[in-house]
């Protein structure tokens, strides 16, 4: 069984990434890990929050507060049904509405690879939150390397798109991402690596399908 991520692109498009692996606490595996990392009572901003599952869990299980940001109409409605407060906004249109507020944690799950202005999004995250948490699909997974060796761009279960119609524009390996955080002056505070939802111990750069990082301004 796999938990699929209802993590949709704008306006009800196909999921950007389908995260496989067993659900935990009713959450997609990467979200369950993110939830583990967030302290009880934290004020959380979840960018591209989808149906609000993470915030719903954090509110009920950990007494957290906060908001989701989501552009898709159906997902906004799903959040409202759950009682999760959601702000309908394209995260790349800027987060000016949040300019006068601060969060303990800002989350961006399985969406960074679909952003156009990735650097700006990361900078805004570090500005709005004491801590940022990002999960993303690891482009360095060995199956991708194998695919390229065979002369083809990778098309996987997680990202079943052809190179010419993928919403995933800014894919990275773990090393690429760590370098990126370093260049932005962000210090990694925690790493999590999952292969189909299960923790990966050795060779995460080749074996993990989803990577999760938390970071703070250095």
């Amino acid at each position, binding site marked *: 069984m796999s938990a699929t991520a209802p993590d949709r692109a704008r306006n009800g498009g196909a999921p950007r990434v389908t995260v496989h692996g067993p659900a935990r606490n009713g959450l997609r595996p990467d979200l369950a890990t993110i939830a583990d990392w967030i302290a009880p*009572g*934290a*004020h959380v901003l979840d960018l591209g929050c989808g149906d609000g599952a993470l915030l719903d869990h954090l*509110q009920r299980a950990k*007494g*957290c*507060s906060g*908001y989701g940001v989501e552009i898709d*109409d159906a997902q*906004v*409605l799903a*959040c*409202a*049904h759950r*009682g999760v*407060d*959601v*702000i*309908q*906004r394209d995260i790349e249109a800027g987060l*000016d*509405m*949040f*300019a*006068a*507020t601060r969060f303990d944690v800002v989350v961006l799950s399985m969406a960074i690879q679909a952003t156009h202005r990735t650097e700006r999004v990361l900078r805004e995250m570090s500005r709005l939150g004491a801590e940022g948490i990002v999960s993303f699909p690891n482009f360095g997974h060995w199956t991708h390397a194998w695919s390229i060796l065979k002369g083809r761009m990778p098309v996987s279960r997680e990202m079943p798109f052809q190179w010419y119609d993928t919403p995933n524009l800014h894919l990275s390996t773990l090393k690429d991402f760590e370098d990126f955080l370093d260049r932005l002056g962000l210090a990694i505070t925690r790493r999590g690596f999952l292969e189909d939802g299960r923790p990966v111990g050795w060779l995460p750069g080749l074996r993990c399908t989803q990577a999760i990082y938390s970071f703070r301004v250095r």
Partner: protein
Amino acid sequence: MTSSVGATTPARLRFDAPLALASGASIAGYELVYETYGTLSAARDNAVLVCHALNASHHVAGASSTDPDDVGWWDNMVGPGKPVDTDRFFVIGVNNLGSCFGSTGPMSANPATGRPYGPDFPVVTVEDWVRAQARLADALGIERFAAVMGGSLGGMQALAWSTLFPDRLRHCVAIATAPKLSAQNIAFNEVARRAILTDPDFHGGRFYDHGTVPARGLQVARMIGHITYLSDDTMAERFGRTLRRHVTDTALRDDYRFTFDVEFEIESYLRYQGEKFSRYFDANTYLLITRALDYFDPARAHGGDLAAALAPARCGFLVASFTTDWRFAPERSREIVAALLANRRRVTYAEIDAPHGHDAFLLDDPRYHALVRAYFDRIASEGAGAPAPARASAAGGVEVPA
């Protein structure tokens, strides 16, 4: 298809104690006309107050018992099984002070003279209306509303409730509204007022004594207002440049008449709306209500800081705007949301991609209604005696939400 609340009959309450108004004047012995739908729960915790906009009234839902064609202005929103479900909520619509649908206003007799107030009716503000509504709530035994809601000017009243009586509402639903009018908004209002004030039939507001109605002024006022309610796209789609067919035409026309009479369909439509309006709306009320719109600016007393103005609010908020609304564009709603976020209030904000401009808040858009329905489901599920959804102040800690 969902059903209606059925035949409705307005009720009337008289308030003898003087109400102090923002202008410094006060008004005593006034009456408010209202309608209610649904049943007030034993715990008196399921009441929803619906605040009306410029030209609407207490008749929110159902059909008037005296005129079955007179259907409430938000009948698609309020009723059994509707987004604001009267099987669960006790909904109150009230006609505001100074309006012309039964509550005390310029057409009412001034106790000092025995003649209609006319121009002597005191200028009222959004906050004055809210204080009058609170007295009605007192009289109906409602200590705390499950929600206060409204669109446009009604949304401003809902916002004012959240700060004037923070403990008296659990939720504020503010749709297609703004934290204050822009210069452009005021400019449109001023054109409308000038049309009325300069109509020879206005007689300085004492037209009742002259047996006249400043119908031309009211028509122009309504025409200019109506333009701001529609989107450019809606007008293009509904009317375009289509020429008006006259009774003498035997075929669709495609040539001009070279006159200043009605030539295009849009002209005909606006004139029709204007004429209809001038037959039922009071000119002095139009002046009063547009002025109340102009004056609304809760941040003014806080040096323009809207977050400071909204700081007393404790309720949860649903704020919604429509992408094609240029009268109160989404940016205006985002100002409200930003202020609420700064105060760490609970807020859901939806920007509904509807083509109909400002009017969309009155129309039956499935995404819009599904959202309001979901939000009211949440209000209902919080149930009786639910703690306030408000959190600790922005400076303080964070309470666990219910």
